[in-house]
């Protein structure tokens, strides 16, 4: 299922930054800001989710290169999903 796969891919990318806390982090943002269940995550949600997660990551580190890299990877995910479809 593409939605499930998108969610897992978002979690997988986030794990590179916040390790075992990634799934909790993504679930929290999906539920709090998108008001959907994690497995309902779809391409239209990605931009909004990315905005929130980038802000949160920016709060965790002063290194803007890390935040930019994370944003770029999530954004690339959006394009990949579009091309897959």
């Amino acid at each position, binding site marked *: 299922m593409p939605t499930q796969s998108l969610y897992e891919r978002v979690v997988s990318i986030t794990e590179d*930054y*916040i*390790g*075992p*806390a990634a799934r*909790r982090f993504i679930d929290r943002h999906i539920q709090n800001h998108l008001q959907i269940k994690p497995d309902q995550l779809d391409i239209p949600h990605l931009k909004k989710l990315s905005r929130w997660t980038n802000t949160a*990551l920016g*709060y*965790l580190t002063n290194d803007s290169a*890390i935040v930019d890299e994370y944003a770029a990877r999530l954004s690339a995910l959006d394009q990949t999903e579009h091309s897959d479809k």
Partner: protein
Amino acid sequence: MIVTKLNRFYLLYALMALLYICLTLFTPTDAAVLTKYHLSPTQAKTLSLAVAIPIMAIWFIAFYGFVHLRAYVQVIRKTEDGKHLKTLSRGIFWLAISLPVNSIVASYMSYLAYRHPSAIPATIILTNYVRLLLAIVSLYWIFQGAKGLASMLPGNSEVMHRDDARTGFIVLGLVFAYITLNNPARRSPVGTPPRAAYYLPDILIILTIIIPYLWVWFRGLIAAFYLHFYKQKVKGMLYKSGLGYIANGLIFIIASSIAVQFVVSISSLWRDATLQFILIILYLLIVLIGLGFFLVAVGAKRLKKIEEV
């Protein structure tokens, strides 16, 4: 509720610090100690306070480190890493509490020995076993927690088979056993004031002091390796930086605690050392423990922040 779960630990700290201050200020100093170090009773009390205050500050840092680790663990307690960190934090609690408890028991036992000289052997034996018991409990939980964390990652079985861990342990064990069993003051009192280190026959020293300490230290050493392994292998650059503080802090705490236990257990060998030398060594080790707990607090605060955003 005014006294929350977390600051109950600070209340416990305050009570123990108060008790220790009372024991330091209001119990008489052994006349033999005053003579040996050429001190007046007032100078001895001033010196005791000068030692007690930084020691109590380190206790506070230990409680501070534990409270922050616990706060983080409470947030993630239902996750897999949370369960193992919870076990580990139980060990950290016992390690934190062992600092004041050991000092209070030792001070009180010294007072009892001063009042009832015939009870000196019993007070020394009791003090030694309390210290050992707390070391067993704290390092048991730390080992279980560290092993659990490492078990979440592949390749963790290598940790138990590391040659440097075995070599380090064998060297530590042999040195400890040799020093302990060659200590002329291990069974009968020697020096001023006359005290023996254990007041036990050699067979009991081997079975109830040396072997349990070696078992505890081995667990501590392996726990440190497990934590190092987990820190190296776990994913997440921001998570790693927070966890690195906790892992390094715990490694510091374990290593310094083992060193303190080692130094204290052979302290009767230092009878001829100067007071200044003894104080410097003990301060140094206690400061290292404090630094370890401080690192744990910094790391726990960073990781907790990840769970809050």
